[in-house]
């Protein structure tokens, strides 16, 4: 395995982590707002608050880790993506900032108003939509190299069906992942009504999630044939992913083993995410930038990998402690204790 592959695998792994934890967070915000809108807030708010409160900040770090890491391992991405993404990434950051700050203001600061719940819910949809545009851009066809530098063709981007398919996929995936996780969490809390409601959401969103995901593959056929043919070569990965999907839906449908169901869902997305990533190889940005011509020097790569391993040694036990104290702590999950400062 070359250093380039190690680097991109590490980053892709963390991006996957972000996709899962952020989806849970974004979806939870949306379901919370929706239940407020429908006057059913009493069913969901407790569960969602208990899950989100101790972990919201951690979610954000996954994202920071990814973009700092990619500039470290692939400094040329700073030039290409930095120049192109000024507007979309700025919008994403502003939304993330408002969402994160107002979450803290309402949860810890006692700022209570319906409009913040709606704000939190809606930003949870806009953020994945705006971040997912990066994936679309990476497929190529929207960037032009001119004499003065590189430019993003906004018109082509926003009229492309691929863009909108990926946006819709990001939304359905967010809601599906979140609903499955929260079903499990509510069930652990022995909160019957919340479990039922979230189980219903999970089943409702499973179908659009799988349809839009399949739709992307079809879209790519016309947009980026090279990528498409590499995707098709990996058909077996997508097949496994689909089987895991069926397993999740089956378990949720049968009201059985919600924990296993969430495990299968993680597996489904993990395999599909990596199949997509592997087929994207070697390009970071079609056709301008590959992981080979964008890579940092060897000394830096080795230093980063050492730092990464040392960092993981510190992080994994800490994350485990966090999960044990909150996610897997019966009293906490069931709302019997809070112990907030």
């Amino acid at each position: 395995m070359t250093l380039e592959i190690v680097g991109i695998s590490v980053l892709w792994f963390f991006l996957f982590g972000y996709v899962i934890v952020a989806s849970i967070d974004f979806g939870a915000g949306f379901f919370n707002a929706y239940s407020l809108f429908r006057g059913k807030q009493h069913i969901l708010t407790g569960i969602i608050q208990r899950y989100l409160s101790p972990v919201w900040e951690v979610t954000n770090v996954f994202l920071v880790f990814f973009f700092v890491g990619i500039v470290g391992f692939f400094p040329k991405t700073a030039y290409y993506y930095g120049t192109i993404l000024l507007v979309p990434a700025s919008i994403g950051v502003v939304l993330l900032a408002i969402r994160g700050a107002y979450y803290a203001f309402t949860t810890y600061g006692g700022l209570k108003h319906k409009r913040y719940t709606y704000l939190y819910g809606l930003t949870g949809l806009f953020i994945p939509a705006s971040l997912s545009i990066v994936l679309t851009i990476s497929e190529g066809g929207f960037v032009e190299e001119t004499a003065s530098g590189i430019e993003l063709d906004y018109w082509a981007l926003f009229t492309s069906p691929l863009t909108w398919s990926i946006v819709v996929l990001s939304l359905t995936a967010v809601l599906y992942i979140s609903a499955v996780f929260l079903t499990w969490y509510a069930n652990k809390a022995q909160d019957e009504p919340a479990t039922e409601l979230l189980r219903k959401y999970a089943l409702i969103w499973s179908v659009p999630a799988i349809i839009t995901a399949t739709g992307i593959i079809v879209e790519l056929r016309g947009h980026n044939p090279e990528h498409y043919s590499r995707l098709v070569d990996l058909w077996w990965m997508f097949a496994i992913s689909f089987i895991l999907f069926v397993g999740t839906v089956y378990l949720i449908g049968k009201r059985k083993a919600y924990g296993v169901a969430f495990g299968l869902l993680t597996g489904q997305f993990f395999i599909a995410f990596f199949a997509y990533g592997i087929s994207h190889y070697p390009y970071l940005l079609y056709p301008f930038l590959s992981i080979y011509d964008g890579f940092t020097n060897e000394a830096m790569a080795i230093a980063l990998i050492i730092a990464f391993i040392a960092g993981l040694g510190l992080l994994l036990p800490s994350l485990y402690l966090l999960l044990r104290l909150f996610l897997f702590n019966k009293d906490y999950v069931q709302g019997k204790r809070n112990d907030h400062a």
Partner: protein
Amino acid sequence: MGNEESVFFSRVLTELTLSFHIIYATIGVGIPLMIMIAQWLGIKKQDEHYILLARRWTRGFVITVAVGVVTGTAIGLQLSLLWPNFMELAGNVIALPLFMETFAFFFEAIFLGIYLYTWDRFENQKKHLLLLIPVAVGASFSAVFITIVNAFMNAPQGFDLVNGQLVNINPVLAMFNPAMPTKVAHVLATAYMTSAFVLASIGAFRLLKGSDHIYHKKALFLTMKIGLIFSIAAAVIGDFSGKYLAEYQPEKLAAAEWHFETSEGAPLMLYGVLDDGEVKYALEIPYALSILAHSDPNAEVIGLNEFPEDEIPPLYIHYLFDGMVTIGMWMMALSLVYVVGVWMKWSFIRTKWYRWLIVFGGPLSMLAIELGWWFAEVGRQPWILRGIMKVEDAATTSGQVDLMLLLFAGLYLILAIGSTVVLTRMFRKNTVEQELADRELEKEGEFR
């Protein structure tokens, strides 16, 4: 939008983001240490007041840390969005501390979540205090790593530039550059100092507003002591920074001191105005610049005449420097008199006017932080990477920077209003007296 405009707006946006972020970042680095000291004192002295102090500071801290995190995310991305050419070059050499910073931050975030939600969970209070250590360590190390990146911009090393290509890259050597020791130490000391004075300012304000509770007096005395210690440390490190500048960035020191001609036994100019290249109305301290630069009253200090016109930073940094130093000295004196006053039982330190001085000390210290960073950044001009890359060559070519400036200005306004409103409401609604009474009842089992 021409490229000159892109450069201009990129500079304005970066300056705005950093100026806003540094307020929350400074508090974020300093407050965990204060909480730790208070909680430790509370456990050691078995004093509920210090425990409650730690608890209330923690609640406020969470709000500021949230704004610090989101604005930190903004500046992290803006580095690549606004300065893509710089990051492409610098990423090859200085990516390591940036990467390590995310780990420090990760570590802090995890344990902050745990610490926040485990008050009262442990029988043994000390266990809970242990959970705070990673928060404080993570916060301080975030500052260390980021400051290392800034130090590298001032004194780049750890690579060779051959025909425009980077060779012989040594990431560790790049981290331990000559600017690093003084810069890191100065940033940490001033963060602790400023946080202490901000908390002191809140305590003094409460005492002025009619609450005569011993809680506030304890808080005030504790924070003034901590502030005094770190303001002395900041001044000592500041002196070392002067020696660093004289050695490695003489143009920055010369511009800050309006030292135009290389000379021996150079005097230090305080304040004053520039009139046609002549310094007027300045307070001149003989030999002081030579002492600051080389610890020797007769030493030679390099003047601006040694540098080409277009490589000299703007001369207004003199005021930024003087402002920072003046505030630092003032706060040291203010806290020294207060601490000695408490020991000697001087009565004037309990008067209204003295407490008002302490109240203003918090915002003043924060102003000194801002002045210090403006001095550090403007004083490096025209370079983004000293001697290697100029700011004008580093900026994005994108034409939409002006719009993004408006967007982010709006964001910071919303965050500033939001955090101020929330913090004032939080502590006004739930006063110390109220909370102490509630906790008493809770202990007796009548309240839950």
